């Protein structure tokens, strides 16, 4: 702080910061993929009312939805190494990037599991009956009739979740990850032009969000092409 504002610096910082966009997208991609896996695993006990497991899932989802991502990040950052130390495994020098990925995967997993469960429950039971009536088995009905439609219902919510997850990655620097914001912090330390750095970062985030939104909307049109409003506008 303290130095005069210089808008031309934004042009100078942008290319330097964009180089670290890959790290941000890597966190996003990994946590989305693992989030989907965890989300499916966590949705199953509740859909099929598996005792004990389903209560555990309720607590897991409630905790994730009940605490800030920053707290979750700290809990994983300090908690996972403590846990592994019990087995004499020292993780203290592990790249903080992994802790970020674990945190965001767990966080996305909880949200995804709720989205999946809601989507599956939103399918009219008449469709299941119709599938049985033409001679399909339980698993054929689930995978051929229920799941394809549930994906269509879940997709817009998942897209929102992924976008807010992208914005949340901006907090990864707090445990020392060298992503865009992390690089921004070092730029601030060396140039003392904080405002220009944050303007540059905001521009990058905004553009990425707009691009993702556009992509998701195109994809959504595709998966939901059987729905009346999509059909008529297509």
């Amino acid at each position, binding site marked *: 702080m303290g130095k005069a504002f210089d808008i031309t610096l934004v042009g100078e910082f942008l290319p330097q910061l964009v180089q670290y966009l890959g790290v941000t997208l890597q966190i996003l991609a990994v946590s989305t993929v693992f989030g989907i896996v965890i989300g499916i695993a966590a949705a199953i006990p509740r859909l099929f009312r598996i005792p004990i497991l389903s209560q555990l899932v309720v607590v897991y989802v409630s905790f994730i939805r009940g605490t800030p991502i*920053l707290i979750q990040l700290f809990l994983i950052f300090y908690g996972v190494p403590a846990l592994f*130390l019990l087995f004499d495994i020292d993780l203290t020098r592990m790249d903080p990037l992994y802790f970020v990925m674990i945190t965001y995967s767990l966080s996305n997993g909880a949200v995804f599991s709720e989205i999946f469960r809601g989507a599956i429950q939103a399918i009219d039971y008449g469709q299941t009956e119709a599938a049985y009536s033409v001679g399909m088995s339980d698993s054929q009905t689930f995978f051929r009739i229920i799941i394809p439609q549930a994906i269509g219902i879940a997709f817009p919510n998942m897209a929102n979740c992924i976008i807010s997850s992208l914005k949340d990655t901006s907090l990864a620097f707090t445990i020392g990850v060298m992503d865009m914001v992390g690089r921004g912090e070092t730029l601030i330390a060396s140039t003392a032009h904080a405002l220009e750095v944050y303007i540059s970062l905001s521009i990058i985030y905004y553009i990425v969000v707009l691009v993702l939104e556009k992509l998701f909307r195109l994809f959504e049109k595709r998966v939901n092409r059987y729905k009346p409003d999509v059909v008529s506008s297509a």
Partner: protein
Amino acid sequence: MTIDIPFMWTAFKEIIKALPVTMMLTLIPLFVGFFIGIVVALIRVYKVKGLLAIANGYVSFLRGTPIIMHVMLIYFGFPLLIDAVAAKLGISVQTQLIPISTFVLTALSLSAGAYLSEVIRSGILSIPKGQVEAAYSVGMNTFQTMVRIILPQALAQSIPNFTNIFVGFLHTSSIAFLVSQKELTGAANIVASTNLKFLEAYIAAGIIYWLVTILVEGLSSLVEKRATSYMRGGVR
């Protein structure tokens, strides 16, 4: 390293003292943001010329960027702006004397306004057009229709969304600790680093957030039942 359970309780008692700060950092932005949200939503619903583009840009940019960026932009940008204006007017303002919380509250209010305007707008759009026509048919004007017929229903229906935003901003207020606010996370950070018991402190803070969230969600579902009682098809 083992977990020091008794210390967790000590930390809990220490950290929860910061709850009022967290609540302030949550409630004030939501309160201010609500009014921003209504104004912006109405501009967008009625497509007010000249203001529509600004409103759209405001919502799109603030929803498209991380809230920590808003906090930092305001925190570093506002003093420069005030200094510049003050210099033009030839008065001297000691920007370093403005409390940091003012900047945080400004930033969070602007963010909340953007998110709430979307909730309010979709609430308004969910009210069937027939209601507007019915209101006109009994002689109400546009303003009366909005205030007496549309908004009450739109807001009542949006309670679950408001709850999500409330919980979201309760959690978002934790980033204020990054600009050294002593709210729950900031307090946990102090307790953690002075005692070198990080995990215990953050578990305690997590539990506090968790409890507040559960409380808020419970209250909200009670309020929702009352507020949307007109939608229960005549059955109490």
